[in-house]
């Protein structure tokens, strides 16, 4: 029984990985052939991948109870990569419903696929369900991880919008003012990227604060300049600079898009780089 359930969750998650690839190609064809039905198809397949992934996560959660560990599946590198792709997917679905940014499906499904493929196929990432070490047994865990990851996701989408902005802008300047009709207008992309960054910034701030509160409950120190803490603060500050440049100097358009792309590199390093390159308290990056 245990063995079965365990296979179910990883199997579902592997299937979801491939379905995301399917969505990615439909979105890509949508961009190349400029056909609306391809985007719609991409979105439908994307939703399917998202639902399979959700089922996989739930199966994994249940499985952890069969193993008598009983914890939310966000506690090691494998789970965190899957969870990140899941939050990116939700963020995209919300943004699409609110702002009609369906074209972002391509970078989003690419990111979702990459995170899941890394989780599923890297020999360095174990898909085993592991018990919680005492320090992680806290209600703050869920709140801290969920807010931080939705923050990361918002930055990821802002990154996608900014890349599209640069492509669109590049096309316009190199074709004497023609507009890439199949991408949202640069105005929309610039605004979307900004909006996602402020959403990400609030979520990241809450993530940092809940992490600090947790550390205070567990160790009596809300801040200890652990590399993960420091890098999350650095990422927060990078986007704070972006916001001040935008508010006080009116930065927008190309310079803001470049800044947003650089900002996302900081997000990636905070999420993965710190664990893979540096050493510290957040153990999920170790193998």
């Amino acid at each position, binding site marked *: 029984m245990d063995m079965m359930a365990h296979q179910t969750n990883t199997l579902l998650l592997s299937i979801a990985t491939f379905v995301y690839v399917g969505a990615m190609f439909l979105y890509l064809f949508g961009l190349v052939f400029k056909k609306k039905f391809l985007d719609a198809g991409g979105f439908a397949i994307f939703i399917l991948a998202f639902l399979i992934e959700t089922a996989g996560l739930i199966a994994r959660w249940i499985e952890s109870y069969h193993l008598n560990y009983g914890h939310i599946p966000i506690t090691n590198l494998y789970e965190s990569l899957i969870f990140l792709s899941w939050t990116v997917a939700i963020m995209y679905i919300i943004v699409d419903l609110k702002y009609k940014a369906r074209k972002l499906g391509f970078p989003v499904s690419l990111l979702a696929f990459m995170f899941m493929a890394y989780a599923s196929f890297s020999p360095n990432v174990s898909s085993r369900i*592991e*018990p919680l*070490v*005492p*320090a992680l*047994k*806290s209600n*703050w865990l869920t709140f801290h991880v969920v807010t931080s990851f939705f923050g990361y996701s918002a930055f990821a989408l802002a990154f996608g919008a900014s890349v599209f902005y640069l492509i669109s802008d590049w096309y316009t300047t190199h074709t004497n003012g023609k507009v890439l009709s199949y991408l949202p207008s640069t*105005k*929309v992309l*610039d*605004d979307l990227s900004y909006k996602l960054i*402020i*959403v990400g*910034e*609030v979520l990241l*701030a*809450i993530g940092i*604060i809940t992490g*600090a*509160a947790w550390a*205070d*409950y*567990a*160790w*009596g*120190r*809300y801040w200890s*300049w652990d*590399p993960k803490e*420091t*890098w999350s*603060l*650095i990422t927060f*500050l*990078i986007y*704070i*600079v972006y916001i*001040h*440049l*935008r*508010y*006080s100097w009116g930065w927008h358009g190309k310079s803001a898009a470049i800044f947003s792309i650089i900002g996302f590199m900081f997000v990636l390093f905070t999420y993965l780089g*710190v664990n893979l390159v*540096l*050493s510290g308290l957040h153990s999920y990056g170790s193998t």
Partner: protein
Amino acid sequence: MDKILDKIWRFFSSVKLAVVLILVIIATAIIGTVIQQNLPDEMYLQHYGASTFRLLNFFDLFDMYHSWWFELLLILFIMNVIVCTWERLPAIFKMLSKPKLQIPVEKLNAFKEKETISYKGTKEALMTMLSSKFREIYKEPIHAKSEDGDFLYLEKGRIARFGPYITHLSLVIIFIGVLIGSFFGFDAYVNLDQGDATNIVKTIRGSKDLTLPFTIRCNNFKIEFYDSGVPKAYKSDLTLLNGGDAVAHKIIDVNQPLTYKGITIYQASYGQAGASSFDIMLSRSDNKNKDDVSLNLNQQFRVKDNTSIAVLDYSANYQGFGPTILVGIYKDNKLQRTSIYLQKYPDFHGAEAIGGYKLRFVKANESFYTGLQVAKDPGAPYVATGAIILIIGLIMSFFSYRRRLWVLIPDKFNGTFTIAGVADRNKYSFEMEFEKIIHEIKKGEK
């Protein structure tokens, strides 16, 4: 003198300085994540070599977040935030308390968002229509008159103008909390064996002895492991004593500390204090008589008549054979010989008997000490308050923006009126909103 002060003031009141300071803080903070902080000097020496070590040490890079220059950067940043806020706040209050209800026509015409609409009706009818329409779709307009005509003024999202100040204020509150914590708080640790008590703890930074106003006694320490050997839980049963009286008692867990008189005791770590006792089974060769005994290290146990044994040494993993004890066999209290017993291979010693008894090493009862963190931080509530205000400030600043609309109905009404507006930021969102408003107004006109 005043000039210098003025210059300093102006230096600190610039947003440019804030951006530069943040970038410098980012750049330097990265150093401390690349160079591991607060390791023993020997480790740095080994890793970097003597000359690099001296250079890095000179700049306090092994404890850089507490170095004078990094703290100076943070202080400069806070001063910058305070001066910036002080400088701009009065103007903002004035701006918000006395909104410009009417503006010159040239200014109105210069706005990007502007629309002139025609209306077939009297001026009075138009005013009534606009008032009710705006009330319905936007908000109640304020009516004003100027030499150009009648103005309707609408403003939304003024809360956004306060957001940045709330946010900046929260940083100051957090900073005050950090200062209070660093002056009136401490961060220390103590390791306690089961049954031990102490009122002396060691500070983490500087490793100085600190006397607590009470004594901590560890009644019991328990550690549970998962099958994989990963710790599942560790708990210390603590009693706090004051002058011999128990004043507090709690079994603390990693996320369940004990607080007494502002001082909190956390379950931080544990360590192996060695094996405290060994369970041994003695059985007669005919298996008729069994005896389970538990022996401490070096404790002699009489097996029979003048023969006794004692556990002399213990290894958790002797040459890959697992837990092993070294047993001494005594006759008339004189050591005769020694022999090793393996927990995993009870038959290793075959039929060799001691005074007619077979000895079997059942298990070692390992004893652990508990690692407690003892901390006091009277600044923490301020930091927490500041953090909550920070989030409120960010939400106020980000998810709202101030925009103003003016409607000008000229005195010499010729059947047209003008709507124009401007937003402090989020120009694109405002463009959309303005379009919608114009659409609604035009609909109402019909």
